[in-house]
């Protein structure tokens, strides 16, 4: 057992069994399409430049055999001029090809990344619960770089080299068809070897990419959990666990290298053997007088010129495979279903009473085993307009889950939730979330100023007065004004780090700044000291008076904010009533509020 647990497995089943690299890469087309002209032009330019490169030696040969041999100074000047012009053209074409694709390919990578980010922001919360963020991150960085590199090199050069090889073979067959056929013999075994290699290399490349994702997760967690690592002095065991994972990655990379070495060796040796055979056969033919020595030399030099295009196929295929698996990984996320939005019925006629009404609401996580009991089971609850209802329940009774259903962070599995008579499942998410405001159990601040963090909770029209009022309610104005730049101070991951109580108060301010119609507070005062808590409660009462609110509460002081209390027990509403009523009638409630067991010791 690792001392510090590390991400044990890739979060998703490793891709489809059908590993067609071409099919995977074809999915890039929508992104490549906008830049297709440039890309095709660049490929064309590459072919032309390669041809020019072949012409230059011919000009050199002509120069030496012609004007120089003839001692023709004018011809020499002309030849040198041709050479210079060809050289300049070649240089410009090489550069032109790169210039053509530079910005477009950077653009393809950026577009794919932006789409991934946008998609991830809109995928269901349940998706994020399943996927470690390191896996998502590695898809957005390393994988997309592989895709860009594929579009820049292998795609073009597989084409260019393929054309070169074909043309070369035509030349070879034209020069001497029998020797040409000898050189053709290795093609079939090479194709077989390459296709076997492709499949195996693809599988290993995929494994390596998944392991990079796991490694990313561990690095991220090592920072997010740094206080625990330090508090328990576990940085050595943490480093060992990291090393294990990095070693596994090293092993996978070496397996990749072994396959690459193998294919490279085969691609080097087999054509050489064919050339050797052609050499021997040719020599015999020359000896027999069937072939001129000059033809043999020309034939063999053409064959040797094809060496690099053929050899390069090995790593070009490898790079393509990596790009293909990277593309698969990318689309695994892109293919996940976004939160389905409601049919565009912005306003349904209100039915029944106002406030928040839960009707037979059940919830089970989509990925929970079938036999597991639902987290929430047949919840019927009504919060009257303007009322504040406290939600009390033991640890893990489903309180936070219940609150997450209202803004549809999770979708109820059965039953429905009505806001002022309107079924939330039929509301547009955006509108729903503008009506409902939340303060989460864990106060998350984003990398932005204090003011921006708070004003996130309101529409664009909100400004300084709303901000001051909200900070006042949360009793945060005092410490905020003492910050270096007041409400302009940068906080969050890339800013000043605040204490738990300070963050909680800012999250509370964010929840109330927009004067929401419906307010949900998940244990909003847990990190506050007694004096501050009392002041916040006093101010919060004013806010709660004008809104319909659900407040998750752990202690009597928070319960006192509410008009009524609902007791949640094992996913069901066990009782509803005032604090005093429940204290009298519910043993569980009394126990939760006082911590003192009444007779039965069950813990």
């Amino acid at each position: 057992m690792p001392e510090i647990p590390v991400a044990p497995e890739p979060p998703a089943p490793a891709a489809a069994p059908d590993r067609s690299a071409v099919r995977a890469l074809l999915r890039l087309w929508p992104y490549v399409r906008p830049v297709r002209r440039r890309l095709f032009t660049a490929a064309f330019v590459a072919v032309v430049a390669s041809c020019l490169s072949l012409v230059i030696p011919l000009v050199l040969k002509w120069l030496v055999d012609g004007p120089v041999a003839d001692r023709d100074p004018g011809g020499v000047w002309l030849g040198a001029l041709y050479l210079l012009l060809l050289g300049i053209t070649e240089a410009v074409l090489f550069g032109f090809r790169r210039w053509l694709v530079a910005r477009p390919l950077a653009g393809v990578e950026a577009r794919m990344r932006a789409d991934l980010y946008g998609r991830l922001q809109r995928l269901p919360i349940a998706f994020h619960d399943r996927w470690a963020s390191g896996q998502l991150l590695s898809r957005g960085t390393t994988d997309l770089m592989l895709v860009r590199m594929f579009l820049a090199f292998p795609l073009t050069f597989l084409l260019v080299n393929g054309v070169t090889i074909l043309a070369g073979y035509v030349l070879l067959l034209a020069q001497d068809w029998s020797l040409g056929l000898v050189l053709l013999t290795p093609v079939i075994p090479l194709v077989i070897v390459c296709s076997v290699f492709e499949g195996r290399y693809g599988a290993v490349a995929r494994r390596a990419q998944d392991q990079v994702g796991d490694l990313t997760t561990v690095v991220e967690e090592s920072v997010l959990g740094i206080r625990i690592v330090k508090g328990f002095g576990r940085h050595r065991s943490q480093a060992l666990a990291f090393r294990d994972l990095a070693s596994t990655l090293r092993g996978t990379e070496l397996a990749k290298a072994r396959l690459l070495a193998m294919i490279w060796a085969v691609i080097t040796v087999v054509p050489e053997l064919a050339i050797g055979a052609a050499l021997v056969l040719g020599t015999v033919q020359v000896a027999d007088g069937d072939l001129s020595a000059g033809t043999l030399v020309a034939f063999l030099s053409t064959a040797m010129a094809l060496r690099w295009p053929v050899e390069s196929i090995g790593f070009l295929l490898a790079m393509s495979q990596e790009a293909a698996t990277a593309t698969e990984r990318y689309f695994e996320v892109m293919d996940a279903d976004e939160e389905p939005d409601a049919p565009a019925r912005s306003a349904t006629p209100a039915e029944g009473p106002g406030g928040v009404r839960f009707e037979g609401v059940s919830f089970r996580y989509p990925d929970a085993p079938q036999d597991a009991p639902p987290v929430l089971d047949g919840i019927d609850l009504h919060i009257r307009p303007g009322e504040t209802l406290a939600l009390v329940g033991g640890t893990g009774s489903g309180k936070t889950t219940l609150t997450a259903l209202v803004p549809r962070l999770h979708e109820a599995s059965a039953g429905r939730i009505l806001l002022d008579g309107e079924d939330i499942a039929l509301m547009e998410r955006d509108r729903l979330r503008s009506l409902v405001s939340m303060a989460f159990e864990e106060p998350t601040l984003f990398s932005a100023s204090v003011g921006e963090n708070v004003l996130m909770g309101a529409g664009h029209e909100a400004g300084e007065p709303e901000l001051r009022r909200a900070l006042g309610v949360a009793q945060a104005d005092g410490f905020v004004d003492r910050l270096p730049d007041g409400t302009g101070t940068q906080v969050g991951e890339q800013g000043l780090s605040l204490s738990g109580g300070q963050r909680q108060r800012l999250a509370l301010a964010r929840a109330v700044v927009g004067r929401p119609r419906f307010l949900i507070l998940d244990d909003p005062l847990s990190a506050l000291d007694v004096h501050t808590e009392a002041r916040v409660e006093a101010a919060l009462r004013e806010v709660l008076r004008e809104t319909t609110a659900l407040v998750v509460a752990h202690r009597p002081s928070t319960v006192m904010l509410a008009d009524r209390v609902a007791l949640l027990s094992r996913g069901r509403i066990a009782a509803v009533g005032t604090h005093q009523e429940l204290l009298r009638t519910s043993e569980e409630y009394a126990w939760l509020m006082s911590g003192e067991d009444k007779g039965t010791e069950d813990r």
Partner: protein
Amino acid sequence: MTDTTTDRTEPPGDPFDRDDLPSPPGATAALLRSLLSTHRARVAFAALVILVKEGAIQAGPLLVAYAIDRGVPAFRAGDHGPVVAVALGYLLCAALAGALQYVFVRGAARVNQDVLLDLRGRIFRHAQVLSVDFHERYTSGRLISRSTTDVESLQELLSEGLQELIGVVLSFVSISLILLWLDLGIGAVAIASFLPLHLLVRLYQRRAGAVYAERSTAIAGVIVKFAETMNGIRPVRAFRREEVNDKDFATLNHRHERSNGDALLEMARYVVGSRLVANTAVAGMCLWGAYRVASGSLELGVLAAAVLYMRRLYDPIDRLGMFLNSYESAAASLTKIAGLLAQEPGVPETKAPKELPARSGTPGREVTFDKVSFAYRTGGEILPAFDLTIPPGQTVAVVGATGAGKSTLAKLLARFYDPTDGAVRLDGVDLRDLATPELRRGVVMVTQEAFLFSGTVAENIAIGNPDASRQEIEAAARAIGAHEFIENLPDGYDTDVRKRGGRISAGQRQLVAFARALLADPAVLILDEATSSLDVPGERAVQRAMDTVLAGRTAVVIAHRLSTVEVADRVLVMEAGRIVEDGTPSDLITHEGRYAGLHQAWRESLVS
């Protein structure tokens, strides 16, 4: 620690914001050297292998010449020997080339992967040693960027670089020598052409270096934003941040796109420039050679041979470009990594560790703050000099408003920081003299953020004591009242908590954190707001555990709930970094002090 304000003049702004931590001059090269130093022999071997392989490949034309010059006449004469020799020779060369290629690829990969493993390990270990406030400013996204995308730049250099470099040097040297040997004049022109090439390379290096540094910063920015969004996905959703985030991300992404495109364009410029120099040189050499042939000072045959070699002289300039490209990218990344590695840990581990004296009777230990004062280097709260002694086994509650210095006191005791002056001692031994394992047997701190690592619940508890058996883990969970909920999870203790415990409530996570602390069984336990998310029964369970399992331990408890404080032997009230009240809870209540006020307010909050 995070002190980055060195004497050198620096561009304005915070090096953290610019993602540009300073590193001592030459640190990048030194880092690369130290990474490669242990692999010198293997690099040399790989170089040799690739040299021999090139040789085997180059033998082809010689065999062709031999076959035509000797094989043909001999075969006509009925002697098959030379032809057989050619066949065997070619076979041998082909096999050798293939085998050596195989050996090289594998050998180079091993060096490459060992270096990467080493580098990843160094980054990770170093980051683990750096202080909490370093990480608060550096962010997880940047660390991820350092250990993934930046490490991958080096990987690219190492996997292609060696073969490229050897190929380039080999061609330049051998062909220059051949040209010089053929004709001093032409050879001299060839060598002279290296000067503009060299200048071009220098220019490219300078420009590409800047572009790649920018690219590395840009991708780190992208990663930071990405990670922040994924980690805060619930509030992102609830507060409809999607579109604003899309816009912010587009800006960061665009910055990366620009630098990425710039890098590719720099490469395009280099290719044009170097090809122009090369092709002009070839044309020049031809012209000059032809003139000398015309004037009779050069033989036609020599020029013919020289011309064939001239072109090949410049064949590797593209490969040189690729090498330079990956080199600059790797150098920019290594500079960032070197900057991270140059950060001094705030609380360095001692080189000469002392041991704690054997525990006398009680499982707790005595804590002394000896004339301790403390100021954060980054500003913020300050503790003026103070003395404090906590006898073994005492439970001390620390109360006071936010910012009064309670957490700082706790962090000094847990050695998250070292005091600016004075010393914190455990049974008389300065914390700075304790090795980490010894320190953590002595002091363990449980904080408010109950973070769960991905893995199972059992593994998360076992962080407290990696050697603990399953029984001990369960016993710890039972003692804290966490056993019941853990058993009810789908796979009990083997339930994967997935992403930071998405399915485990904050209160449950705090219980797991407590179980961790019980398992660690420290002499001194610090609880920094560690019960804030617990309900009243949960809080009681913690108190019971402290009375039973942790009985006799020295404990420092920071809590807002005075129910936790009431069971303390002693209460410290802090205000503006000073301890303003110190006494038993019952004593302090009877005085008209701050604690009495707090107590009164708390009583009123109970109302039931």
